[in-house]
């Protein structure tokens, strides 16, 4: 599983980095960016889903492994 932030949709609500700080962090203006390469470590899947489900702009994208 991987996560990414759709930069065109993100408006800096900050839900992703509040709910899943291992996966997301704020940039200098408060927009969400992924930590590292966005690969979700085992045990972080639920946090990734919560971040996606709580983004008001639906900017958090989860890519399940094929």
């Amino acid at each position: 599983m991987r996560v990414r932030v759709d930069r065109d949709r993100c408006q800096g609500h900050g839900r992703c980095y509040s709910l899943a700080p291992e996966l997301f962090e704020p940039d200098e203006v408060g927009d969400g960016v992924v930590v590292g390469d966005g690969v979700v470590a085992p045990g972080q899947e639920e946090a990734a889903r919560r971040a996606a489900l709580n983004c008001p702009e639906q900017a958090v994208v989860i890519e399940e492994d094929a």
Partner: protein
Amino acid sequence: MSEAVRPVADYATDFDHHGAEWVADPYPIIEDLRRRCPVARTERYGGAWMPVRHEDVAAIAYDTERFSSRTVVVGHTRPPRDIAPVGVAPPISSDPPFHHGARRVLLPAFSPQAIAKLEPGTRAFCEELLDRLEGRDVVDGAAEFAQHIPVRVIADMLGFPQEDADLFRGFVHDVLEGVNDPLEERFEKVQALFAYLEAQVQDHVTNPRDDLTSYLLEAEMDGERLTPRHVVGTMALLLLAGIDTTWSAIGASLWHLARTPADRERLVAEPELLPTAIEELLRAYAPVTMARLVKEDTTWNGCEMRADDWVLLSFPAANRDPEVFEDADRVVIDREVNRHAAFGLGPHRCLGSHLARMELRVALETWLARFPDFSLADPDAVVWSPGQVRGPRRLPLAVHR
């Protein structure tokens, strides 16, 4: 004094967000509108619309081509069109492309990293307010606690004298709640606000210091200093937008906890649940309704909108939409999926949302630690603010020991 609001016959065709029933409790009206029409209309204020579905509120928030932000508070007059794209209080009143740059200037000062630095001072101030309430059986959670917190925080950020707090609260009331005041009176009150801000700017020009006002005076947009009008307009925004909104959110949360012992007891027992609960309280009692002006005659969702019609963006209505939220009318303090729009949607997302969340969390943490058991002293004595920012302005709470 505000002129009395003419009674509303039917909120679907004649709504008034200053109407007595709406001010007391808008949610039953919103649910009625949701069933009967998804977009309410009124001829008041020179013509206005109010969608109540989340999808429609979002669509208008995103559509900066057809809907202008040149003013966001519904009144009986519109500012001249040539005030766009800057507007009276940039960037809230700005349209693209100006909006992006004006917002970019401010974002670093309101980032989560910047706001975290303000938390210790905010906590100390909350404790100081609570110290003053010790030993009393009945305290006003709105007037004696909630309202003081954002006033102090924003005054410190802007570098304004703390003793001017009463003045700021007066400005908020005049600008946001006084929309039905006689026009001449309203004009004079807004002039008083801008005169105050000009004086603060002068003081900061003479004595620059490490605060937001001096930052704005030095800030550049597209390689140039901000115009004096831009600086003062932004200061007006920062002073006004953060005060009654956050005050309302803190007050509404205390109101809910005062009348819902199960939720209050759970938060006292499980303080780690507070951040989740705060999101739910923001969803259920979203304080802010924004407004847009229709740019040109247009047909939107079957509505024949005329240029300069208002559109109210009711985030409170969007947040109770059963299409988006399970059990939308129930407060579920451990709600896990909560895509609420209390801070708006799209490019105008509340600039101060990280600040507001910090203030709300610290206020509730300190209050619950000090007064874990409280209830409404007199439910009929609770007074809610009218208009586009909704929260309790009188909230007598009985504190039990």
